[in-house]
């Protein structure tokens, strides 16, 4: 049995190999510098005062006692954020209603305005000589609240009589705005064909409702940021982020300060999974630094991370699928309502567009509600929105398979999306690899191995993510010894220094070890979007390839100059530069590199890209479980993750993404959830009570990398990180449902919920 297989179409010299990552030694010796490892002389420590209520009006804040506390250097509240001050002081009509609302939401999640909207909502910040003094001062800030009824459930929030979080929030729906204010921020609808007619033509129709709990990305490193507002007006920020340019843009807006005066240095990042795309504290420490003239550092506690960063949304969903007796899907209708948290902007739109993406169904309807509730503002979490939607859709598909007595892989092969399939919201798939993944699953030894126990069952599910392009920049400078320095703006969250260096080495025809990658600050590279959305190896890889092409062209020009001929006579192939009409004349890359300084100076290649050729990705997961009917505990016996990644640049890190995503999905399916009490307070804000999988809970996670090359990338790269978290939710839930003979429609399928279902 092979634990990790790679089904390759094309082999390359460097791309597809498994070299040691460039930052590896620093990370196994403790030398890598993460955000909280920074130690600047004279740094003050900051702490945040957070709301004890899920929903309340702030009647007054008195910071005078805290300001007088020994060691305290500054205390600020929402009024001290320049964006909030601008909104408060603007003349009527100066700022449009929609801008006012958007800017208010932006500012108020850093420090509350006139209301607190979730327990843990930041209200005030203190900077002091040490963290104990800062914490002691928090207790001296007097805040008078008028409590309001909390809205902690998406269905309640949508109800007629619900309390409103924002009195001026109206539902945006298909270009119209509701007259009455509502907790429903927006309603979206996509339709193809005629779903009702499709259901009437179906031999079998199944309709079910589903719910999922709020979950957290669970990165091990808490959010951290340090800012120093220098006397010359230059603001320097060091932080843990997936996107230094997003931090710069957000800080610029909240501080009403030009981006040219803000430099963001991304430190090593201790996990993010989408949760560190959003920033929470950089503008706050910046204002504290401006007030004190000293560097100010803030590190969240684990409880603050749970209560006041951005979890993935809880959801309520309804799915109706119709098929004929042969198992051909005829019609599908998916309704999603996601909890956005305190401010609008849940990932219900991508959830909606992913929901039916695995199926070539002639009639489809997707509708989606973005709903505010008194919980922390949700953030991205790996394939945002897709896992919840897949749980609902794939669960109905599993029931259809049971009703029709069909093999779940045969059913999916019969209905699989393929090149030319039009999605419900419009786009037509290009070259995709869902069928190849399903065939790999059917051929896998796991699938052919029978189960052996009576409380065991197998779950199978597919998942989708579109993948992303967006902006990336790379510079490549040739050193005199034939190596190159590769600088980029993409934070390395899981091995992209390696995967991007490999692409540069491949394009330049040099060794992987001759590429020295560095991740630089926002002053030192062009605008680069976040590391997220499965875009980095694709888009920053594209930038590295184009910067390499730029280097190659300049090297050809230099050789032409040395040989006193036309550049058209110079060939650059596999790292060798040669004169086409005189085979005696040739340089290796290293030989020409040594001559650069004497023939015009250093060569630097550059590329700024916004590639549009991202390739959509699909995954298929198999899981065997055994359920203990006495305790309700589910044991994962065997797991196989299969995915079309286009081309695996570094297969080990691709497998790592697939395994890590699968395990996060297993946690989401089986155990992880925010427990809220009736007051909207999270009751399990520690790693003891928020139960993420440990090594002991799991088997090995087998993988099959399927490579259906993406035509939109020189080496066929699609991207990998998002898809693996999508199939586990329905695969595990279906396996448990089959094992106990009861269809589970709520996540997590925790021991308690399983026992409840069995009683």
């Amino acid at each position, binding site marked *: 049995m092979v634990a990790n297989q790679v089904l390759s179409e094309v082999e390359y010299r460097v791309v597809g190999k498994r070299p040691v990552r460039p930052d590896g030694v620093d990370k196994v010796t403790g030398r890598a510098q*993460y955000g909280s490892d920074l130690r600047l002389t004279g740094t003050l420590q900051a702490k945040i005062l957070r709301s004890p209520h899920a929903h309340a009006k702030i009647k007054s804040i008195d910071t005078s006692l805290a300001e007088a506390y020994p060691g305290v250097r500054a205390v600020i509240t929402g009024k001290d954020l320049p964006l909030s001050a601008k909104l408060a002081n603007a003349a009527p009509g100066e700022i449009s209603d929609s801008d006012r609302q958007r800017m208010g939401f932006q500012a108020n999640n850093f420090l509350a305005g006139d209301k607190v909207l979730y327990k843990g909502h930041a209200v005030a910040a203190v900077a002091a000589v040490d963290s104990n003094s800062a914490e002691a001062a928090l207790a001296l800030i007097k805040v008078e609240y008028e409590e309001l009824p909390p809205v902690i459930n998406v269905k309640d929030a949508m109800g007629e009589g619900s309390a409103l979080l924002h009195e001026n929030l109206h539902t945006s729906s298909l270009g119209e705005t509701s007259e009455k204010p509502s907790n429903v921020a927006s309603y979206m609808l996509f339709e193809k064909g005629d779903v009702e007619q499709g259901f009437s033509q179906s031999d079998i129709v199944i309709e079910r409702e589903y719910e999922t709990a709020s979950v957290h990305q669970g990165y091990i490193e808490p959010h951290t940021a340090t800012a120093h507002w220098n006397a010359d007006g230059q603001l320097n920020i060091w932080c843990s982020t997936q996107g230094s340019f997003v931090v710069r843009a957000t800080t610029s807006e909240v501080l009403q300060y030009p981006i040219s005066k803000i430099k963001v240095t991304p430190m090593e*990042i*201790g996990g993010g999974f989408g949760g560190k795309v959003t920033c929470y504290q950089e503008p706050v420490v910046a204002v504290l630094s401006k007030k004190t003239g000293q560097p100010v550092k803030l590190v969240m506690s684990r409880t603050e991370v749970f209560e006041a960063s951005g979890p993935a949304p809880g959801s309520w969903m309804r799915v109706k699928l119709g098929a004929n007796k042969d198992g051909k899907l005829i019609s599908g209708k998916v309704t999603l309502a996601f909890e956005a948290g305190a401010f609008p902007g849940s990932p219900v739109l991508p959830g909606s567009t992913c929901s039916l993406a695995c199926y070539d169904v002639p009639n489809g309807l997707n509708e989606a509600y973005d709903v505010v509730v008194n919980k922390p503002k949700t953030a991205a979490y790996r394939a945002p929105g897709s896992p919840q939607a897949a749980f609902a859709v794939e669960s109905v598909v599993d029931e259809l398979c049971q009703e029709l007595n069909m093999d779940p892989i045969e059913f999916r092969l019969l209905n699989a999306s393929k090149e030319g399939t039009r999605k419900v919201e419009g786009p037509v798939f290009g070259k995709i690899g869902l069928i190849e993944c399903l065939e790999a699953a059917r051929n896998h030894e796991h699938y052919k191995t029978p189960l052996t126990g009576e409380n065991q069952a197998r779950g199978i599910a597919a998942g989708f993510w579109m993948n992303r392009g967006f902006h990336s920049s790379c510079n490549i400078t040739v050193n005199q010894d034939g190596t190159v320095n590769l600088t980029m703006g993409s934070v390395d969250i899981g091995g992209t220094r390696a995967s991007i260096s490999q692409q540069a080495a491949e394009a330049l025809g040099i060794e992987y070890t001759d590429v020295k990658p560095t991740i630089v600050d926002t002053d030192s590279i062009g605008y680069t979007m976040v590391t997220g959305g499965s875009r980095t190896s694709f888009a920053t890889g594209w930038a590295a390839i184009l910067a390499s092409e730029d280097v190659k062209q300049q090297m050809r020009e230099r050789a032409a100059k040395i040989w006193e001929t036309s550049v058209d006579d110079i060939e650059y192939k596999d790292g060798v530069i040669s004169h086409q009409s005189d085979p005696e004349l040739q340089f290796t890359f290293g030989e020409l590199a040594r001559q650069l300084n004497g023939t015009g100076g250093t060569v630097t290649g550059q590329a700024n890209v916004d590639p549009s050729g991202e390739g959509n990705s699909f995954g298929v997961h198999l899981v065997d479980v055994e359920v203990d009917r006495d305790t309700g505990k589910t044991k994962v016996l065997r797991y196989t993750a299969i995915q079309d990644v286009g081309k695996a640049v570094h297969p080990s*890190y691709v*497998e790592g993404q697939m395994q890590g995503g699968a395990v996060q999905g297993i946690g989401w399916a089986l155990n992880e959830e925010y427990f809220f009490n009736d007051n909207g307070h999270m009751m399990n804000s520690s790693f003891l009570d928020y139960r993420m999988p440990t090594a002991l809970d799991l088997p090995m996670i087998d993988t099959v990398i399927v490579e259906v090359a993406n035509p939109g990338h020189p080496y066929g790269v699609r991207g990998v990180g998002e898809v693996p978290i999508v199939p586990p939710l329905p695969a595990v839930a279906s396996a448990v449902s089959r094992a106990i003979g009861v269809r589970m429609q709520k996540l997590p399928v925790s021991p308690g919920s399983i026992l409840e279902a069995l009683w």
Partner: protein
Amino acid sequence: MPGLVHVETTINGNQVNFLCEPRQSLLECLRDVLGMTGTKEGCNDGNCGACTVLLDGRIVTSCLVLGVEAQGKEVTTIEGVASPEGLHPVQQAFLENASLQCGICTPGFIVATKALLDREPDADEGRIRHWLAGNLCRCTGYDKIVRAVLDAEEKMKS
């Protein structure tokens, strides 16, 4: 400064003296007093294992040990795992098996693994998973970590 306690201890084989407040954890002493930031903080309540160090050879979460408790003891941190001659086989195995993604949990895993293999050089998969259950990794799903530990066992035998 009044109220500070003098602690005399051994860290990674070197005698070390430091002053700390009685309430400061060993983790705070390592990171904030001594500037040894290789030991990481993930939760500060003993549940993630990122701050794992050895105290007289036993694994502890240094956020749950007071700095003053290090008095007269031997502390081993991630900074003491490699030698001037090169990486420890556990570190080498983590590199070669791609057992880290973000790397924030890695120091804790490596210190905990070293402690296991010092005692049980033939630990099997089940024993490894049990031993490492106190260390959370959110990136890898543990597969490549467990494989690295098995690989390190082989490396240490040869």
